[in-house]
């Protein structure tokens, strides 16, 4: 066992060293500068409503914040619009809900297209209509359940 550990750790170091030196030369020699469309396709995140950053330039704190937010959004219920809700228009895109549209319900009971509200929640974790903080409402609903 002891031998195994020793052996593997030595291998790891050599691998790391090797990959470091090759990574530098290969990325610049073989690939060259990335074509412009690749730069555009990098996802952009909004750690705060007025701050936008490409995924590669997020601080560690911002990455944690965004990861938490992604997790929380997944806990918000979704459904298929069935035509019986009172508000017929998604206030974000201003397009009327159609039968079979994917909608997301916030804890304050406001409803939006999944695509529309998720885009907003990644910037600000509040309901656009009532400005209720979504995570606070989520936490209280956890506590009461």
């Amino acid at each position: 066992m002891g031998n195994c550990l020793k052996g593997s750790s030595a291998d790891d170091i050599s691998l790391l060293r090797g990959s470091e030196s090759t990574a530098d030369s290969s990325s610049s020699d073989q690939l060259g500068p990335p074509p412009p469309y690749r730069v555009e396709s990098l996802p952009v995140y909004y750690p705060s409503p007025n701050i936008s950053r490409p995924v590669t330039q997020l601080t560690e704190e911002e990455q944690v914040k965004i990861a938490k937010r992604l997790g929380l959004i997944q806990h918000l219920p979704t459904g298929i619009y069935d035509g019986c809700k009172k508000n017929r228009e998604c206030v974000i895109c201003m397009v009327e809900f159609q039968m079979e549209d994917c909608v997301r319900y916030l804890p304050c009971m406001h409803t939006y297209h999944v695509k529309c509200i998720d885009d907003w929640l990644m910037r600000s974790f509040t309901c656009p209509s009532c400005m209720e903080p979504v995570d606070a409402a989520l936490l209280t609903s956890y506590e009461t359940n």
Partner: protein
Amino acid sequence: MAALPRRIIKETQRLLQEPVPGISAVPDDANARYFHVIVTGPEDSPFEGGLFKLELFLPEDYPMSAPKVRFITKIYHPNIDRLGRICLDILKDKWSPALQIRTVLLSIQALLSAPNPDDPLANDVAELWKVNEVEAIRNAKEWTRRYAMDN
């Protein structure tokens, strides 16, 4: 240029069909995201009788981010600076995609009725507004006459 989102088309149609009293917003012929705005000075404010020109631009990611709005007509107001930039929370951190061009312009009109010298953008104006409100209001009226009434 990318196609105009449905929401912008809808908002523009509604603005033209059901205009807000005291506010006109007309899209530019060459750029549908740029609006020529005129706000009338509210009654019982030092800006009464004035017609204030503004420009409003809807950024690429509107309505996820707020419209950019600026006064073109010079105005003596503690929350509007010499460049016409406006200090208003809904244009910054309190923006929500449920707000619209209409509600933004109504808020700006309300800001003219209720200047807030405790959250200043034009510091000299705010200072005078706090220490000598009578003189500040006199200045605001004078600027309205001089810059917002000539045509």
